[in-house]
């Protein structure tokens, strides 16, 4: 096997200072929630281990995960993963095309069996496989072939983790997430639309440092980043508990930065790191910018809208109909039913009420 350079060797060649390199390792260790010596472990791995071969597929998606990734806070992240590390095959970013490109990824599979990582952006159509074909083969065929000998699969974003907008009702392409169409290999669901760049980097660094996938929650998401709700780390939480709510985007509450719960904020039902790691180098995140969380890292978030309403509308009852409206309607019907029953009772149960059938009735 040919000698593959380590990450550090690659980035050093690009003029990244040792100091920056170590800063990166420390940040990553903190994000991953490692012990104090975690930074050292990461630095060691990046300096000694050969780069991970990666095949990165784009199926039914919008490339927002790649976009997010290349905007990650530390230049090393994008550098490491996109330029250096790996990307032996990445449809959007690779220089090769056509047969050359196909050869590149066939070569990875042959050269590094059991060692390469398959990263997937996008969902897989199952209604008709022809909805997503590359090089004359369907997404499903390509994925199955690539996954057969890989070390692990990373599902980027909501599309690959739970289908996202393509799988929203009525799901015309029968879009399915990766973990539903393949089996036998560990799948990491890096949720979000898109996922936070630093979270993506954290997952890659973990794979490289420890040679295995990070600890996952019961929905397949790395626990380090998805074990807390946006709501639990939201800086507006004090307003929530105090009962101070924004009621329209230009009211006094909005100016004072009150809680966005009544604007349909899905923070209380969404597991993500937005409140801690934030976006764009820690600049802000949606709630900090005054917009409610739309729950982009949760399964089926498109179907649980409207976004600006706390309670989702109930399927089959129209977009404005919430459980409360239906409940109230049923309440009125029940009251009407009871009134009708009370009336018929007074008529049909007259004998019971007045004791007429009884013989030993005494009046005085």
């Amino acid at each position, binding site marked *: 096997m040919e000698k593959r350079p380590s990450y550090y060797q690659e980035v050093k060649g690009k003029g990244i200072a040792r100091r920056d390199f170590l800063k990166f390792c420390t940040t990553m260790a903190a994000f991953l929630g490692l012990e104090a010596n975690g930074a050292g472990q990461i630095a060691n791995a990046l300096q000694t281990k050969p780069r991970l071969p990666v095949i990165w597929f784009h199926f039914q998606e919008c490339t927002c995960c790649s976009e997010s990734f290349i905007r990650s806070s530390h230049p090393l992240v994008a550098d490491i993963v996109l330029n250096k590390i790996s990307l032996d095959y990445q449809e959007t970013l690779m220089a090769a095309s056509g047969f050359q490109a196909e050869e590149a990824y066939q070569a990875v599979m042959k050269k590094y069996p059991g060692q390469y990582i398959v990263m997937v952006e996008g969902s897989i159509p199952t209604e008709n496989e022809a909805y997503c074909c590359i090089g004359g083969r369907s997404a499903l065929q390509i994925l199955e072939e690539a996954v057969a000998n890989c070390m692990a699969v990373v599902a980027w974003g909501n599309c690959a983790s739970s289908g996202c907008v393509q799988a929203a009702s009525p799901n015309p392409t029968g879009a399915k997430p990766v973990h539903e169409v393949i089996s036998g290999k560990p799948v990491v669901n890096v949720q979000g639309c898109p996922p936070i760049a630093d979270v993506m980097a954290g997952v890659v660094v973990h794979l490289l440092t420890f040679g295995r996938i990070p600890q996952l*929650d*019961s*929905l397949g998401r790395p626990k380090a980043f998805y074990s*807390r*709700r946006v709501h*639990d780390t939201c800086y507006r939480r*004090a*307003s*929530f*508990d*105090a*009962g*101070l*709510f*924004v*009621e329209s985007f230009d009211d*006094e*509450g909005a100016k*004072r930065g009150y809680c966005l*719960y*009544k604007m349909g904020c*899905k923070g*209380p*039902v*969404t*597991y993500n790191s937005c409140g801690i790691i934030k976006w764009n180098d820690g600049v802000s995140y949606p709630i900090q910018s005054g917009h409610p969380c739309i*729950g982009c890292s*949760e*399964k*089926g*978030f498109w179907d*649980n809208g409207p976004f600006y309403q*706390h*309670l*989702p509308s*109930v399927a089959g009852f129209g977009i404005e109909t919430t*459980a*409360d409206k*239906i*409940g109230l309607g*049923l*309440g009125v019907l*029940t*009251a009407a039913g*009871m009134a009708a*029953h*009370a009336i018929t*009772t007074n008529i*049909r*149960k007259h*004998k*019971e*009420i007045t*004791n007429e059938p*009884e013989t*030993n*009735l*005494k*009046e*005085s």
Partner: protein
Amino acid sequence: MKSRSVPLREVYVWELPVRIYHWINALCILALCITGYIIGNPIAVMKGTEAYQNFWFGNVRFIHFVAAFLFFFNFVFRTYWGFVGNEYSRWYNFIPLKKSQWIEILEVIKVDVLQVKHKQIDSIGHNSLASFIYFITFLMFLLQCLTGFGMYAAMSTSYLPQLFAWFVPFLGGDIAVRQIHHILMWAFILFAIVHVYLVFYHDYIERRGITSSMIGGWKFIEEDVALRNDDSATSTSPKKGKK
């Protein structure tokens, strides 16, 4: 004075633990529905103040959670009592496994719902239809606890809520869990309304003292009905009902 003499027997139907359970349950459900509704639709009463000066929404949620724990343990207790209590509170009343129970369900529908037939229903405790509805409400209690504690698990490290954490991924995520929890509130409200109405209805036409039976435990049952029930209880169950 209008009066009549009928041979009646007082029958001890609801033992003290059942009655205590009933009223704790009623109060909990009332508190949970009110606080739950507010959690789902908070009113923005406060304006122009700072967060550190208030905590009313936190208090509403706190009451919800305290009531929730009480509701849960009360429900666990009632389940236990279904195995050790008297014949009217036993579990087998609530699940219509016997043909006789289905026959009575049809009878009750004819007599009390459609009112096309006029006779007394023999059951001294709940009638079979009522029991079956209560069984469904027990399932509702269970589902409400599963969804409620499932959500609660995310904000607690204590042991009990964690036991329910599996239910969230089972439904695909918190959004669905919360929606089901909210919809079920309406099922509770509708049940409570109909329940109270039917208690009034039965007292109105039967005068067996059903309303006060949940306070004192005793019901007035026609002598012949009471004795017939006692006989059948003796003949069908090996353990004679304690009376």
